[in-house]
């Protein structure tokens, strides 16, 4: 098991490095000059040249890449062009907000998605089933940012006189103070971010349960007089878990990526927002570091997913390859 883990974690490195390399050169290709951004609207050529030289940006890109790799080897992600801060500090500062949002969304989508899926499977082809299936398709088909805006309109907006437009009970955006206030701020972004996964998971749960229900051993259990709810919970659900976990793993990238839009709409102080701002200001080190971090998290999550498989279903052995 541990040998397998080590092998898998080492296997992550080329993927993350490949992504970092692509982004590194992409940032170089983007027109514009980070130093010019630092100077503000008017900047004289001499100052610009001086700062460029100070930051080492006058060197050929391949040399800069060499420095980047060298720093990376010592665990240093470099410093931001924009404000000379350590990239690692900038990212770590935002990590809790992004993780809070992503994990809440995963929990939300697994719980709500599976509940809906089970309900639909139990009532196959009845009105509840059709309704849930249509709703889940709508969830999958709605643009995340638009859903966010819609949720704001419904649950948060207030008119000029301070009276709610519709419900107006939740904060429009922001991070809030720790505690209950944070929770209130979390609801809308988490909901809009998880809508897509809820849809996928509901559909997946439904189809795997239906598949399992038709199998012999379930029929036997039913024939033996086991209550229907026990059968669903004990046998069918267990089988449905594997595809659901796969979806969660796959969607985690979507969650982190979708968080860019969500964080923008809800002013959520997370990594997605920092990375988008950094792209705007050509702050290469922050972009590269941020994307590496997101990719790394994604790969790790998928590793956890694989391990979970073997926990749920002992027949799947990790050492197989």
């Amino acid at each position, binding site marked *: 098991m541990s040998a397998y883990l080590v092998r898998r974690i080492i296997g992550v490195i080329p993927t993350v490095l490949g992504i970092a390399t692509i982004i590194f050169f992409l940032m170089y290709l*983007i*027109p*514009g*000059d*980070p130093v*010019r*951004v*630092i*100077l*503000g*609207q*008017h*900047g*004289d*050529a001499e*100052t*610009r040249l*001086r*700062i460029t*030289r*100070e*930051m080492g940006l006058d060197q050929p890109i391949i040399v800069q890449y060499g420095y980047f790799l060298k720093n990376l080897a010592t665990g240093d992600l470099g*410093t931001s062009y*924009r*404000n*000379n*801060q350590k990239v690692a500090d*900038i990212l770590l*500062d*935002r990590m809790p907000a992004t993780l809070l949002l992503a994990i809440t969304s995963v929990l939300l989508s697994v719980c709500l998605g599976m509940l809906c899926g089970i309900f639909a499977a139990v009532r196959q082809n009845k009105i509840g089933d059709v309704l849930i299936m249509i709703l889940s398709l709508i969830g999958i088909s709605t643009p995340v940012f638009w859903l966010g805006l819609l949720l704001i309109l419904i649950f*948060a*907006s*207030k008119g*000029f*006189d*301070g009276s709610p437009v519709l419900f107006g009970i939740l904060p*429009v*955006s*922001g*991070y809030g103070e720790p505690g209950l206030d944070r929770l209130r701020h979390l609801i809308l972004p988490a909901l809009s971010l998880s809508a897509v996964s809820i849809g996928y998971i509901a559909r997946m749960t439904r189809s795997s349960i239906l598949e399992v229900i038709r199998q012999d051993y379930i029929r036997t259990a039913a024939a033996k007089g086991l209550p229907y709810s026990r059968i669903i919970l004990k046998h069918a659900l267990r089988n449905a878990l594997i595809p659901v976990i796969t979806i969660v793993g796959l969607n985690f990238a979507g969650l982190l990526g979708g968080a860019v839009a969500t964080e*923008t*709409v809800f*002013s959520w*102080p997370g990594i997605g*927002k*920092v990375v988008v*701002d950094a*792209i*705007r*200001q*050509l702050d290469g080190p922050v972009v590269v570091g941020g994307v590496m971090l997101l990719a790394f998290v994604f790969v790790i999550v998928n590793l956890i997913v694989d391990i979970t498989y073997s926990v749920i279903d002992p027949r799947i052995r990790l050492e197989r390859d």
Partner: protein
Amino acid sequence: MTLQNLKAILVFLLNVLWLIPVTTSEVSDVPVEFRFRLATNPPTLDPALSTDTTSGAVILKINDGLVQFEPMSLEVIPAVASSWEISDDGNTYIFHLRQDVMFHNGRPVTAEDVRYSFERTLNPATRSGRTFVLDPILGARAFMNRDADSVKGIEVLDDYTIRIQLTEPFAPFLAQLCMEAASIVPREVCDKAGPQFSLHPVGCGPYQFVEWKQDVEITLRKFPAHYQWSPDIDVIKFRIIESVPTAFEEYKTGGLDLLDQIPNGQIQTVRDGYPDDFRVWPYLSIYYIGFNNSKPPFQNNRKLRQAFNYAVDRKKICLAIKEGLAYPVAGVLPPGIPGYDPDLEGYPYDPDRARSLLAEAGYSEGRGFPEITLWHNRDPRHTLIGQCIQYYLGQIGIRIRLKNLEWAAYIEAVDEGEPLMFRMAWVADYPDADNFLFTLLNSSQFGAAGNYARFCNPEFDQLTRLAKSETDPGHRIELYRAAERIAIADAPWIFIYYEREMAMIKPCWQNVQLTPQGDFAIPLEAVRRSAEIIQ
């Protein structure tokens, strides 16, 4: 003692008496808090590195320099320097420092700190983008290029006296010393913190830094040992709220005391709904669509440029896009700048005249005009204005395309003179006609230095050059007005509007000085809380 003095003392005493209830109420343990909105997380709080107003809003409260702007008149008045002398040739400045100025860490400020701070800004290792503030000083260039270990023109005469020599006389030097990059910072803190100084700034201003929650808020507390101010506001919270609708919701529900922006399409309603909160005041800024005057078709075709100016209904743009918060532009200088001429006519909306000028320019009804592109940086307002310009030019037969870029790529392209038409705005660094006419249109300023339009008119150049060193204010204004008239006639831009600054401020705050520099520079240390609200 004259009668005048007596009156002044009386007024002062009355003021003190009136203030007493305020001071007693401060004894209660709830600190007076002021919540100010920032649209983005400031890139830095290091005064040497700041080039934007978001950073400036915070930095101005933490830091003081030798001199400062009087908020309303924008005259240069004492700050850390209590007085100064300028030599007759305008080349040497001697500043006398106050002896009661303290840094927030409790150490007194001396002339040596001034020297350190100036050299820190100029030091290439600091990577300041605002070295131009100090580079008129003799020896600054050699120091910046690492050819000298110190700046020759800065000389500490004693603990509280410093002499600064310039390379050549430069009238706006004092005004430039009011900018953030000339703030005085403590050496021991800076050297120890390195780049981290930006996260934990220390200065000698009226407020001291407490905490910066990235992307959330910045907290400052009043500095009790400040030499000049004893503010009513104990704590300033700068809340970082990017979305305008959100910020507006916060203001309505009491989470903000000052709001600098109102959601599109609602200004009129808000004006009617909150007459006591809504404030509008002049702002030293101009918005224009520049032509590239050094490339065809605009090069040497004044009639074409004029035709474009007549074709655009700037009044309607002011109403529809700015909802009446901007004035149509007649000239280059905005109101509030010495030399502003209210009688200028500029270019009224006159499509017929535009069409005939276009024909005279060789493109009758737009025939033969190449398809050109109007560039703008990515922002909803620029997009709207760009589409209006596109529409109005379409009315006289000119088809243009729009293209938007992120600021970083955009400004570089404009520097290089790539776009044939581009949108640009300018907010004064210091309140002087020089900062508009010379900076934006003198041919020595081509490209990034400010003359993005690459406008070149020898007569104009001469006038703005002469005015720079002219010492008689009256004559100086004459020169600038003459230059401005030339610029209008030559139409290097499509003139669009003068901005006005707008903010919503809770009415319980008094003595809010609405400075033409913009809301970021409102001196919160001078703001008083009205007595009724406290009781």
